[in-house]
């Protein structure tokens, strides 16, 4: 048993879901990416990716910018300031959980 299981409660469940964690990880290391790029990188169906992005947008973690480039629709995605700090916090909390386990 972890010494302080309450640390697990601090884990952000919006980010913790594996698919959303992959999306957040991808967007964390870049400035911005578009829908097609993420779809290829994560090998996801458009519907699935779309649903997870909506949840991240609702949580305020991802900014979705819809625009037209040469008359074609284009969706640019980037982590918001809150998204970046939430991801850092998630990483620290997870590290804390594992650190407690090894004590």
């Amino acid at each position, binding site marked *: 048993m972890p010494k302080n299981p309450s640390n697990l409660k601090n884990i952000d469940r919006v980010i913790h879901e594996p698919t959303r964690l992959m999306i957040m990880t991808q967007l964390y290391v870049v400035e*911005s*990416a578009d829908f097609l790029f993420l779809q290829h990188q994560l090998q996801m169906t*458009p519907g699935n990716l779309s649903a997870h992005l909506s949840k991240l947008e609702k949580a305020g973690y991802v900014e979705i910018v819809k625009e037209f480039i040469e008359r074609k629709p284009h969706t640019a995605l980037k982590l918001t300031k809150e998204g970046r700090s939430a991801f850092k916090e998630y990483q620290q909390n997870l590290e804390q959980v594992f650190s407690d386990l090894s004590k």
Partner: protein
Amino acid sequence: MSYHQDGLLDIFVGVYILLFGLGILLLTMTDFSTWFVIPAIFPAIMIPIWISAKKRITMPRIGYVKFGVRGANKLMAIFLGLMVAGLGAFMVFGLGASMGEGWALTLRDFFISNSMIIIGIAVATISSLFAYTMGLKRLYGYGLLTLVLFFTGYFIVIPFEYFLVTIGLVIIISGFVLLMRFIRRYPLPQGDKINAQESV
């Protein structure tokens, strides 16, 4: 997935090396020095074409990503490091040679008599640095090819320009193979499907 797996960079670099080789070849054949204008103005003409090709071929297939400044800084640091080191070495050498220093003259003679090997090692080192920084393993291959050809050129007397033409052609062919593979692997999404996909 890399933005350079489409082979476009290889095609453009290959064409540049080929033109450079052909420029020297035509210079030796015709004694017409303006052939050197071709490789000199090449980047100015080809960079906009390369960007346009990226927009038309690569981005619609694999999407677009804007990387942060960290990666660019790493590449820039290597560029600047190489430039400063090269410039520094050249200045020390130039100063020594102009003062008639024995070591500088010996070094100059050494460079002249071993130029093929020195250029080969320099190109292989630079290619390896780019391969490492950009994560493009095929650049190690190009570097190795240059090294082998230039080492061969040291022992077999073949004009330098033929090596450039060979390297340029190999890189162009490799680029086209990569481009064909890329287009087959990432077909263009249909217009309607794109609209459906992006209905976030």
